């Protein structure tokens, strides 16, 4: 089921009509991370977060290309990010896919706090996570806002001792996305 969602994100294929009513998609969610180390603050973001939510089955999937992150304090830093830390050629994508714990009524507009439980794959390593997020159910769209953190050690991202003071061990991540129903064509 989650695999299906991932494939939907990937292919953006013509939809099966019945799915249109319950699957919400985004192609341009924003994801931002910040590393607040004693000596340096690094921030980068991507607006190419792709995601899908199946409101019937209460499942979801997100994915983002690691090379789509921009910002950083210098182009060199971005290069290091992709080549040394994230190894973006080996592990081009990060993913988070799973299920929504709370049984909320997606047909009722309002703001909900939900917990998303799933597998977070980053740098090729998968960890099970429960991530709390704000969900706004609006007229024909869903808005998602989630703030969480990632421990580098949990994903086997090692930092050379030299730059220890410049990169935080806990990276803060901010996700904002607006989902629209999947259209029939």
């Amino acid at each position, binding site marked *: 089921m989650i695999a299906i969602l991932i494939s939907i994100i990937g292919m953006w294929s013509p939809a099966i009509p019945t799915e249109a009513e319950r699957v919400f998609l985004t192609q341009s969610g924003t994801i931002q991370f910040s590393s607040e180390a004693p000596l340096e603050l690094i921030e980068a973001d991507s607006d190419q977060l792709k995601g899908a939510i199946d409101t019937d089955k209460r499942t979801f999937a997100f994915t983002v290309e690691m090379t789509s992150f921009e910002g950083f304090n210098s182009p060199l830093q971005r290069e290091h990010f992709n080549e040394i830390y994230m190894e973006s050629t080996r592990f081009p994508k990060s993913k988070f896919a799973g*299920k929504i*714990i*709370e*049984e909320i009524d997606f047909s009722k507009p309002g703001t909900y706090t939900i*917990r998303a*439980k799933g597998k977070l794959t980053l740098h090729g390593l998968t960890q099970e996570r*429960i991530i709390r997020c704000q969900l706004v159910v609006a007229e024909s769209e869903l808005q998602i806002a989630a703030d969480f953190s990632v421990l580098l050690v949990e994903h086997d991202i090692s930092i050379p001792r030299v730059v220890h003071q410049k990169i935080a061990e806990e990276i803060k991540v901010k996700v904002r996305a607006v989902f629209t129903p999947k259209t029939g064509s």
Partner: protein
Amino acid sequence: MKGRLVRYRWKAYALMTTLYVLCNAAGFAQSPYFQTHAALDGLRVSLIFEDSRGFVWLGTRDGLKHYDGNTLQTYLMPDSLGAVSVTAIYEDRDGVLWIGYENGSIGTLRLQEVKPYLPEEGTPIVRISGIWQDPQGLMWFATYGEGLYFQRAGRLYNIDQEDGLSDTDIYTLAGDEKGRVWVGTDGGISICWLEAGEKQVRNIGVGEGLPDNIVRELQVDMAGNMWIGMYDHGICVYDMKSDTFRIPISADSWTYGPVSTILPMKGKAWVGTEGGGLLTVGEGVRQLTGKGDVQVAPNGKILDLLRDGEGNIWLSSNTNGLVFAQESLLFLDQINSEPIGNVQAILADRQGHIWYSTETSFRMLNKSPSGALQRGNSPSLDRLQGENIISMYEDAAGYLWLGTFGNGVFRYLPLEGTLHHYTEAEGLINENVLSIKGNGPEIWFATLGGVSRCRLPDAADPGGFPLEMESFRREDGLGINYIYYVHTDKSGKTWFGTDGKGIAALENGQFHHYADTALFKSNKVYSIAEDDQGGIWFSTADAGIYRLLGDSVRYLGLEGGLSNLAISALVNDGNGHMMAIHSKGFDLISVASGLVNSYEETAGFEEVDAALNAVSIDQQGSIWMGTQQGIVRYVPPDLPFRMRPATRIEQTLMLLNPVPLSEGRHFAYDENDLTFDYVGLWYRAPGKVHYQYRLSGHNTEWITSQDRRATYPNLPPGEYVFQLRATANDNFDHAPMSSVAFHIRPPFWQEVWFLLAVGIGLLLFLYWIIRDREKRLEKAASLKQQMIEFQFDTLKNQVNPHFLFNSFNTLISIIEEEPKIAVGYVEKLADFFRNMLEYRDQQLISLEEELELLNTFLFLQKKRYGENLQLTYEITAAQPGACIPPLTLQMLIENAIKHNVISARKPLLIHISINGDSTLRVQNNLQKKRGVVPSTGTGLQNIRSRFELLGRDTMRVRETETEFIVDIPLLNSIT
């Protein structure tokens, strides 16, 4: 589910939590003392389990580990790549340990070996998160990803979302008293059971009043209620009787992160969290960090908790590894940043306040809503500072009586601040007041100048002042003026502990002294207490404890298990024990059994050196002790606990190889080098355990040792019982024994059965020899008989008239024409008869001789039949020693001549050949005479019998359409 939801939201908790965190920052808390053992250093343990024998098992990423207080032993599944990380441990009712693994494997531990559990359906491929056996004996397995399994009649069945399970990711499993399985998932709680063999599932979620859908931990408490630990919203309790939730901890105020483990106690629980360390949850939530070196990080992740049979609480965390503490002891060494030390007197009053004094200060502690202690204040408290208070008592009206060293007694009503002062001017006999006790309106003061007594005039107005004092001195019958302690017993007697005159009792105005120097080792009495049977216990300055009951006196010293002879205070713990406080800690003495448990440095005590009688018992039964290092609180445990080491014989080695030693095992005479490995389980202080063992049947004396191994080489045959007992102090009396009986058999040649068998064997052999001899004689006789018959037959044949008639006719026909030949013929005939006479007595003759005989016979016959009788030989490879019964061939040829037509048209062809090495074949073409010669078969039968009697292969006779074949075995030698 139609559960009623009762939600107690105590807003105060939010405030309390804040307050608490602040206070904690200031660094005070009542803390348990955590310790660890060197063997456990660096061990990361995710599961702690105690089996029914008292052994502790640890689930780790590197397999299952067994810990006996001294050594760790790892148990791995055989040949199991992946089945290493242990995620569930359970002991079924047969004592078999079940182990669940991260990769879904399940194992059972039998006879020191983990064996894979391999149901036909296969094991899960995801983490086993719980194992349970229901009252019917069915095994249940919870998984993280595949839902719930149960095993029935050898088959594994699954319960998942299709059956109504709230989610297949199961975090935790618990069985309730009704035999139902509770599982905690991301969708709340699912209760599963079987009804008439059908799967039943009932779900409890947010809709039913559960505060949080993610249920991480379920534990049943002693009352049968279910404690529920959640991801975000802390703890709640499901009351089984009323089917309602109790939510003592408001969801809003829980700041400790997901609950990882719960250890329910009476009315409270120890709770481990993933982000808030260790908590006790009861009337409030308190964070426990720990006294001394081992501090549980307040933001640490707790992995598991266990209470063992000794009353230790085991704790595993990501920051401290595996540590444990006495569940009953809490230490308080500072309050509001002020260190507590040199406590001289302590009192727990009926309002729940704790009063304590040092030489210069007098403090009051009260409880915050969370149950944590904090500094309190009360009116006029300031005025009592610096008073050097050394004794305290609370009377029936709630007044505190405070005895000072040198300044008489204060009577203080804390709520109002009313304060009265009694000195020698008010009639007190002496102003150094060491002990105060009361009995209703009567208050007693023990001083360094005798004792005083006052009577409260009026219960309605107890606050009257002054009070009339009555005093007793040495000359009034007290015997000495230095009185350390006064105690009023339930029967109305008042007891006094004196400095050198023993213990004295005042009854009906008469003093009675118990100061027999022959009876008591010391007459300096520091403390007196009364047990529930009315026994009076008193402690002496340096010679231990005595108990008086009627006329009987019982003494308790070092050999009785006491760890220290200088007891400064005695108190009845209200739980069947007497507590004796000394300079290193305290001893807990069971009144009924006399067993002694010591709580010293391994329990967390540093410098006790308690002042005399700095002890008090509160309304809840907790005992508060004042020490040099602060205040120690002893909470009598809810559950029974073991007071001495439990002995276990771990394994038996025979010639240093492990042998399973079930009760009454038999060993062979040469399996007589036995070693016993044993342990006394005493996790609190394994180093204090020592053992006594003996091998009854071998030696009768107990051998005292600190080793955990006893070896007996070269045991003679016999019946033995290995007996073991252990203690953590000097007292082995009443120590429960572990024993194992076994038997070493004598060597087989000394066993009765062997001698019997040998006797019978000899008899049988003798019988056989006799029988054999008889048989051989019989056979020989029979052979002889046969021979005689044969000879008779042969003779009868040879001299039968036909043969003679034929021979003579032949002779007549040639006698005239060829007289020379006739002479030869007669010579042959004579040869023939001579040979026959010569051979007939022999059993065997050589084949050559037989053939020679046959030639003579043939010569005679040929003369008659001419070329119509033809005999051919094919005896090329005749063995040199080949033998044959005499006249066998002649008889066969004769038989052939007798039964067949012999004419020119139909010649009789007889062929004699050797077939292989061992048979001689005589064959002739078959052309039977019809009806002329009646065949009696006696000739053949005769030959056959002879062979049989000789015990050789039998002769074989075959008759085909055209041929008659006889095979006779060739015999090897003449026997």
